[in-house]
Structure formats: C-alpha cells, structure tokens
C-alpha cells in the first residue's frame, strides 16, 4: 500500500472518530500493566452491500456499515480482549481497562509513540473506485444479465439464484511497540447456483460456481469473466442429470487444477498453523525437517498475490504479508505464524495473524495456499490411471487437526477407466490422513491454477477469505466414500 493511502486511512479514523495520537497512546498505556508484554488496538470500518436474484428478479438488496475497535493485552500466552462498536476515547479507555484484567498488577512499561509504519510500500489491490460505491442499479443489471444468459444456455435450467456482494474494509493497527499500520481491502464476489431438471421431471440437479477477489466492480462485471462462470454452473448442473452413484473404497484419484487445492488447505495448511503446533495438538507437531510429501511436492502460502481473495498487504497485527514455503520438495519446513505464537515458539512472524473483524482475536490463518507446478502434461497424468476417479470441482471440506483426518466433497467428478474419462459421478467424498496424504502423490501436472476467488475458511468461529491452488495431481490409495461398494 502506498504511504499516501496509509496516511489517508489513519486520517480517516482520526477525522471520523476524533482519535488523535495522544488518545491512542493513552489507551495503550492503560492496557499495559506490569505483567503485560504487549498491547494493541485494532480499528475497523467496513461497508458492505449485497443484491440477490431468484426467479428472474432481484427481490432484495442490503447495505451494512460495521465499525468498532478491539483492544488486546498480551502476557506470555495469555490474552485479554475487549471490543466495542463505539469508537470513542471513552469506550477505548473502558475496553483497555477490561483487556488488562488478565494481569493482576498495574503500572510499568509505557507505550512507544505510534510512528513506525510496518506496512510495506506496496498496494496489492489498488482500486479506482471502492466496489461498494458502484451503483446498486449496475449490480442489479448484472444479475439480470446473468439470469438471462444462464436460461439461454440450456432449456433444462429451471432455477437461477445469483448474488453479488461487495465489501470495502479499512483497518488500522496500533501497537505498544510503536507499530502503526493500516490496510484498505476491497473484496467482490459473484455467486451462482443453477438448478436443472430433466424435461420429464424425473431428476433435478444443482450446479454452483463463484468468482471474486480484491478488485473493483468494473472488473467483476466484465462479460468474459461472468459468462465463463455461468457456463460452468449450467454445464455442471446438466452434467449431473446423467451422473451415476459414486463407487466406495480405496483407489487412485486425480485432482483437477485450481479449486481442488482445498486438499492442501484441509489436509496440510490447518495442521501447520502456529497455534496448534505451539500447543502440540496438531498431527504435524514437532515434525519440521521431516518428509511429509513425495519428492517434487512444494507447497507455499502466499499473501502477496495481486488482487487475490486471500491476499493482504499487512496482516491484522500490522505484520507485512509474505510468501512462506511450508513444504519444499517433500520436506516440512515452515509454519504459519501470528505474533503471539511466533514469539512464544521463537520463530519468525509470517504475516498470517488474521481475524474476522474487530470483534475477534487474531489467530494464525492461511492466505493463498497452493502447490507449485510439476513437469507432466495433465493428459499424461490422466492416462496413467487404469481405474479410479477424476475430481474437478469441490464443495466444502473439514479437518480434525489432532487426528489429522480430513474430508472434502466433490460436486464434479468422473470415473476413470483405462486412462480415459468415464461416466460423471455424484456424491463423491474423499477422506484421508493429512500427514501422509501428500506421500501418496505420484504425478504432478504442469498446469498450476488458482481457484476463481471463492474460498472462505472457518476456524474457531471466525471466517476469513482465502485462496487455494493446485496443478493436476495423481494420488494413490485415497479412500473414496460413495454408495457403490
């Protein structure tokens, strides 16, 4: 983010809420007690709007303003947190007194004056116009075009539900060590669900797609982008009208490029978050330097990709985002850290301290997590399997960090017979064990793709936008949960 923008965010909070630097330092001083190591303030102002279409019309729209401040005191692994949706000097002082309650004594260190900018001199997602300021009429018109286009593609389409959500979030982080950072985060998203029905009414299926990122509404409304999205949703819904029940059991699985990278997010990423590893409750605890994946497998988390949904200029503690190598050529080499866990583990901060809003404590979270491309053509990877399944698109997934077991569900999958794509399948669920699933990788395609910008990760009740990516990948001996034994 440019220094001009940074000072404008700081100016924004000063102007709207009368928060001069003296008030900030005073709040930090109140928070800092003798047994408090660190204190910080997190200010947020978010505007968001959404329009939703169904049955061919936009029936409703909504618009929201959310603002507030969170005050945190940290003493070793203990954290005190108080937040308020009123941003005033009084509420700040009140919250500061509450946050320091984790410490028994008062008085001691004083806050450094907030001057040092932790923010890097870059903006990964500059926009000419905040997406929330594009007119609601344009958003309504876009959904109308999407609806007509979807219905024009296939007469079996019976329902189209589409939504357009835009968000503009301004945040400011002030720390007792002198940290002063800010970020301006635009976010847009189109979601589409199409229901197709056989002409005789005997079967209905659904196709869902989405796209988005940190860019403006003009970019989102470009027809080449959304037409592809609509085409995919209609294709999946109509394809699934002919889909067969999925086989069950252990088999070879080929994952298509892009969104199937959710495998990395569930199976690997969560288990490498610093908090679980500091507490030693992750199946990956204490395994740095060990082989956890086949040769050739390199996995990174990168918060610095321009305009991506999972990207951030700085994390929600003011640490600049970065590219962190988690697995290099099969060897586990890094964790994702926020400030507290990095400091307690004596490891570097990685810019992964994120939170849903001012009402939440930061935690180590992923940004954009993906596997680097290999050498093989995707066609060769597919041809290499005699019997198995090919999974291209997924719904959601979940992991048990402690046992390492993960699961995720395909919404577009095919049987593979003798190296060729066979019938489409419904209800394919993949399950596996995080610490060993990547040792089952036998072929890596050259076609790395990132997802279209739809990922949301939930942890401990907090949701944050994330991205994933994957090249075409062959895994052997994965358990597929279908109904056909």
């Amino acid at each position, binding site marked *: 983010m440019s220094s001009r923008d940074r000072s404008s965010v700081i100016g924004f909070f000063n102007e709207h809420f009368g928060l001069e630097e003296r008030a900030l330092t005073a709040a930090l001083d109140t928070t800092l007690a003798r047994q408090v190591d660190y204190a910080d303030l997190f200010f947020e102002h978010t505007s968001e709007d959404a329009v939703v279409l169904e049955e061919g019309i936009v029936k409703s*729209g909504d618009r929201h*303003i959310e603002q507030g401040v969170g005050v945190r005191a940290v003493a070793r692994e*203990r954290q*005190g947190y108080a937040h308020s949706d009123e941003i005033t000097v009084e509420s700040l002082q009140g919250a500061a007194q509450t946050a320091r309650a984790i410490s028994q004594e008062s008085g001691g260190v004083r806050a450094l004056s907030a001057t040092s900018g932790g923010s890097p001199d870059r903006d990964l997602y500059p926009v000419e116009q905040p997406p929330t300021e594009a007119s609601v009429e344009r958003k309504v018109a876009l959904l109308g075009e999407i609806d007509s286009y979807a219905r024009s593609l296939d007469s079996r389409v019976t329902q189209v539900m589409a939504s357009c959500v835009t968000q503009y979030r301004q945040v400011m982080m002030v720390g007792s060590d002198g940290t002063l950072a800010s970020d301006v985060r635009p976010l847009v998203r189109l979601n589409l669900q199409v229901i197709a029905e056989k002409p005789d009414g005997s079967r209905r299926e659904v196709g869902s797609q989405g796209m988005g990122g940190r860019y403006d509404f003009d970019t989102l409304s470009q027809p080449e982008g959304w037409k592809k999205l609509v085409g995919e949703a209609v294709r999946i819904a109509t394809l699934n009208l002919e889909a067969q029940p999925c086989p069950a059991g252990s088999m070879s699985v080929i994952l298509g490029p892009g969104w199937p990278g959710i495998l990395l997010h569930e199976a690997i990423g969560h288990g490498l978050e610093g908090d679980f590893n500091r507490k030693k409750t992750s199946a990956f605890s204490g395994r740095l330097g060990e082989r956890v994946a086949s040769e050739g497998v390199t996995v990174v988390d990168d918060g610095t990709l321009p305009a991506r949904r999972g990207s951030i200029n700085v994390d929600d503690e003011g640490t600049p985002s970065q590219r962190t190598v988690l697995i290099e050529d099969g060897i586990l080499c890094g964790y994702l850290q926020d400030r507290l866990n990095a400091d307690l583990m004596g490891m570097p901060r990685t810019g992964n301290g994120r939170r849903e809003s001012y009402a939440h404590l930061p935690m180590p979270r992923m940004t954009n997590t993906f596997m680097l491309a290999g050498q093989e053509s995707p066609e060769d990877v597919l041809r290499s399997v005699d019997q198995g399944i090919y999974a291209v698109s997924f719904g959601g997934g979940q992991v048990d960090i402690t*046992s390492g077991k993960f699961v995720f569900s395909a919404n577009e999958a095919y049987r593979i017979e003798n190296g060729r794509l066979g019938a489409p399948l419904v209800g394919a669920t993949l399950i596996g064990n995080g610490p060993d699933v990547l040792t089952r990788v036998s072929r890596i395609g050259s076609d790395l793709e990132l997802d279209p910008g739809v990922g949301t990760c939930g942890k401990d009740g907090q949701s944050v936008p994330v991205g994933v990516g994957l090249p075409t990948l062959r895994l052997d001996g994965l358990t597929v949960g*279908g109904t056909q034994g």
Partner: protein
Amino acid sequence: MTALSGREVVAHALDAARLAGADAADAVLIEGDSTEVRVRGDAIDFVKQARGRTLGIRSLLAGKEGRSSAIASTSDLAAEAVERMARESVAVARATAPDPAAGLPEGGFAEDWEKLDLGLAHPEDRGVHVESRIQDAMDAESAARRMDDRIDNSEGSQASSGHSRITYGNSLGFLGGYESDSHSLFSEPVAHDDAGMQRDYWMTLGHSLAELENPAEVGRRAAERCLRRLGARPIPTCEVPVIFDPVTAPSLLRQLAGCVSGYAVYRKSSFLSESLGEPIASPLLTAVDDARRPGGLGSRPFDGEGQVTRRNVILEEGQLQSWLLDTYSARKLGLASTGNAIRSAGSPPSVGPSNLWFEPGKASLEEIISETPRGLLVTELIGMGFNPVTGDYSRGAAGLWIEGGEIQHPVEEITIAANFGDMLRDVDAVGSDLLWLGRVASPSLRVSRMTVAGAG
C-alpha cells in the same frame, strides 16, 4: 453513547424510514454483551469481553406489481446515522424489483409476549464474576486431565456468559422485545498414546447457570469421549447398520429442517418439495418444532416478523405434516406462516427451526447397540457432503465398531453414504436419550443400512 432505549431506537428507525419515503417498514435491534474465557491446563488462554448493537431497517415500497424492498444495517445508533441508513434502505429498494409476495405479515402478531415467561431471562446470573467462569473452565480442564495419564494436553476449556436483547417493530404498530441470557461450558481435551493423538469434546449450555452440568462432569465426559478414540483405525468398505448418538443425530434433523424450509420448497431445491402429507420417514420418527418450550435454547415469544410462535408438528410417525414457514415463503406456497421467521439485523427474514427435536423412543443406546450384530456407532461427523436437491449424503465419520452387539474398537478415516430419503425411511431404532446440546436435538437413531467406505 446513546441514551435511547431499544424500543425508542426501533421507533425512531421506523419514523425515519417513513420520512425517507417507505410505504411500510420494519426494524430489528439486536443488543448483546458477553464474556468468554478459555483455560488450557492451569493457565488462562484468553479473557474476552464484548458488547455490540446492530440495527437493521427494512423499507418496503408499494407498486402496482407488488412491493420492492431493501435492508440497511448499522452499528452506529446515533440519530443521524439511523436516518442516513433509513434513506439508504429506501434508495436500494427503488432499485429492486416489485414482488407480489413481499411485505409485512397481514396479522397474526403476538399479543401475549409481554406476560409470557419462557425462562429465557435470568437477571440473577448477570453479575457473575469472570473469575467464577474462569474457575468453571479450570475445573472442567483439571477433571479431564485427572481422568487418565493419557490426557496430557488440550485445546482448552471455554466458558461463556452473555446477555442479549431483541427488539422488533413494524409500521403496522407491532413493537415488542425480549431479553435472553445464555451460559455455556465446553471442554476439548487431547489424549495421546503410542498409536497417535485424539481429541473430542463435551459441552453444556443453558439460559441460567443452574441449568449447566457440573464443570467436573463436563471435563470427565469430554475425556471419556476422547480416550475411547485412541487406537482408531479404518475398516474395510461394507454395508452395515449405522447408529448416530445424540451428538451426531441432530445433524440429520438439521438437514431435514433445511429440506422442509419454505424457501427450499418453493424453489424446488429440496428433494422433499412435493412430499407434503406423504410418508417420507420411518413411522418411528416424529419431529416437533416448538418455540415456546420452557427454557428452550431456541425459544422466543414472537418470531423475526413479530408473529406469534407456536408448536408445529413437522413429522408425525413418518408422515410429513408441515413445512417451516415465514410470511414470504408461506405466501409463495399459498399457506400461512408457521411463526418460524428468523431475522438478523442485516438480512431479510428467512426460515429456521426454533426448538426442533425428534421424539424419544424407549430403548437406551446400550440396548440399541446390544441389538446390533454388526455395525457402526458414529460419534463424530466431518465435512459437508449433503446435497438437499437430490438427498445425496456422504460424510466423513469417526466412531466405534460393533460386533456381536458389543463395542469392539474405535474407527476413523471412513465415510458413511446413502440417500438421505432412504436414511429417513430406514431408521429402525430410536433411543430414549434425547439430549439438548443446541436448538436442534435428537435421541440416538439407528439407520438399518448405509455404505461405510474405508481403506482397512
């Protein structure tokens, strides 16, 4: 800080919407404060105190072909901010399409809400000290660790206490509010042995502290569930009866609730959308939604549109008796609201269960297990493998393998799959152990046949 009461804020919002040009409006104000603590081992992990208020205003504009509507919400309750948001809601509403089914309810507003005592508010517990809740979490944590040497770690034990106030009003003259207190305690220990590491949890929740289970009991039950998972392994793919315990069975009822929601029905995005009045489930299954269950976690004197709440039988001995409806979805289907509108400040009304449960049967879980020659008891489900349009169901599971009517060993890294419609029909045992761990509750259920997939 505003000096206005919740009802004054809502009344002001309705006036502001009218002044901004709305022909009809409603507004909801949600106010809450809470304290949350987490302890790991004998140390505090965090103490968190929160307070928040959000106001949502829905403006409706009348036209020849119906009403158009939009919502604006804000946490800034200053008079001018409320007026600005009211204008925003009208401006957005002008851009949306008229809809004949949109609009406020025509009648049916709750009249008895003021004298009704559903056991939601417990002012006597509002002064509870944070130290006392920290102690509860510590007691749960230490009880879990005392159970067994193999419990040597945890994700922590968490206690929370909160108080909220909901105020709803509309331009037809309804203006009501109610308060609700909530307290909970949750414990998640980690056990480990040579075979690996396992976690599990137990929890208790209620509107008053007196309704909570003893903290030591919470820790002990969490530890028990966790310990019995040690040594879990996959099993080979097979087709067997599957028993859901009262922790996992409510997920089936939540799925059913989604499939009988009026919105899924009129959109035909539910596999049950043409099945009203038909037998869709085993005669052993009766499902009831009752927003006036005393002390219920989902109880409310009126719903998100001010409608009187009531008891609705959704499923009676396997026959589908009623959808869950708000005003909009009811109009779309030519029916009347069932009082199941739920409302957040920032969204239009939608449909959700209040207190929803499967009526218990006679057998204990132990008896059901002993009558299962070979099968699986599911104690945890992960993943989102359910498609309400088709009923396709396939989820990750962990549990206990049953052979000869007895539990043999823990199982993990498996999936269970079937069609949800078949699962409902194939329920052949219902336990007596109905347990409230949320708004949706179920006793143990046995499904006579599912595909269990594993690598074993």
